[in-house]
């Protein structure tokens, strides 16, 4: 019998999908984001066993089980700290984080700020549909203040919208981009860039909720390339310029906004020692 070296075959995007059928409503934007993530993993040919996708709670947070990489569907709002723990304990892994606007910006808001400033090498994909879908359509932090579609806030939430990109930029995220689920191949590019860029990358994805926000079907006519009139690829390393572009952003600009140069977080290292060495400190 001939013993052959294993043939290294290319993985296709379908290889990064699991056989589980999503619970998402037919027509949901999150299907396209799933497709984009799997295409990005295939484009980069990341070994499935060395890749992890961590999520919180919500419609979009169901995504890890629909992929064939290591996943963790954690608790509401805590995807970022779990991912931070995984990446800092296992820097050899590629760690992606996914979730929705409520999970990331409301209950997980503090972690979002600190993930941006800690700058651990993570890629955070937020599927933003400005609504809590899993609990039947309440206002989220990114919901318009006058949206009256929820029984919980019949007069509208009456609160200014959370600005994910402005906050990420202020807090120190090293890569900031916005994509649209209806442009999945552009989204693949953004995700690939985010993964390749060192430090914390935010990919803000407009992903329509066709059940509770059917008007979001119009996103496809509202999105446009580039921040502040710049082309799709024009991420700037200059924070001042990035802020300027954000001030002109109508919320539907797509592409890379900011590519910073801050080195990714690295845990302290030290000259190796043994436990016996450490115990000597206590000896009289």
């Amino acid at each position, binding site marked *: 019998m001939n013993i052959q070296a294993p043939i290294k075959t290319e993985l*296709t*995007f*379908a290889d990064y*999908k699991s056989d589980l*059928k*999503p*619970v*998402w*409503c*037919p*027509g*949901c*934007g999150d*299907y*396209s984001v799933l*497709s984009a993530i799997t*295409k990005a993993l295939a*484009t980069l040919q990341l070994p499935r066993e060395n890749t992890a996708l961590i999520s919180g*709670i*919500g419609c979009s947070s169901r995504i890890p089980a629909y992929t064939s990489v290591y996943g963790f569907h954690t608790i*509401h709002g805590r995807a970022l700290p779990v991912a931070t723990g995984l990446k800092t304990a296992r820097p050899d892994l590629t760690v992606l984080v996914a979730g929705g606007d409520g999970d990331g910006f409301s209950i997980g808001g503090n972690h979002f700020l600190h993930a941006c400033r800690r700058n651990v090498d993570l890629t955070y994909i937020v599927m933003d549909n400005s609504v809590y879908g*899993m*609990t*039947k*359509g309440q206002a989220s932090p990114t919901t318009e203040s006058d949206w009256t579609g929820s029984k919980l806030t019949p007069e509208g939430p009456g609160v200014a919208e959370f600005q994910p990109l402005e906050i990420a930029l202020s807090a120190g995220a090293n890569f900031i981009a916005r994509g649209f689920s*209806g*442009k*999945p*191949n*552009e989204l*693949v*590019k953004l995700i*690939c860039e985010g993964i390749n860029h060192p430090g914390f990358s935010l990919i803000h994805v407009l992903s*329509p909720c*066709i*059940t*509770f926000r059917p008007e979001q*079907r119009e996103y*496809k006519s509202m999105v446009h390339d580039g921040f502040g009139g710049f082309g799709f690829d024009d991420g700037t390393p200059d924070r001042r310029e990035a802020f300027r572009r954000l001030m002109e952003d109508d919320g539907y600009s797509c592409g890379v906004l900011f590519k910073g140069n801050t080195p990714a977080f690295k845990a302290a290292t030290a000259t190796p020692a043994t436990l016996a060495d450490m115990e000597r400190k206590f000896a009289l």
Partner: protein
Amino acid sequence: MTGFKDMTGVPEFLAHAITLEQEAAVRFDELADMLEVHNNHKGVVELFRKMAHFSRLHLAEAKDMAEGIAVPKLAPWEFKWPGEESPESGAIEDAHYLMTPHHALSLALASETRGFDFYQSLADKAADADVRRMAQEFADEEADHVATLKEWLGRYPTPDAAWAEDMDPPVSVD
């Protein structure tokens, strides 16, 4: 967003054909899966499975043609699709949990028509003669599918305007 983009030659054309069919197959399976989970009309699921199956047959054909040809490896955003996605990937946003066979056929017809348009414009306008010849073969097959789907669609008239009405409220899940 639907401008014609020529191919550099047969290898690039085949890269597109293979990806188009593969993505179409996966997408139709996704559509079938999502409607299976959401208890839609059985016929819709079956139709999408059938479409996925046809796409896989085409994929096999395209791969056969690519035998011995160094097909370039393109990143998803490097493809020269006329639109945002490969043309035969059924539009996810057109899916609906109450969609009827009529809607499913319309969705499938739209994707096959986009596929036909893609191949036909290459057959008409490509600079490379081999590309034109191959594209015409694919376009002819797509034309058959388009005709078949149109015929099937004739059997499923447009449902009444209330097709998407649901007396029950949505469910709270998490």
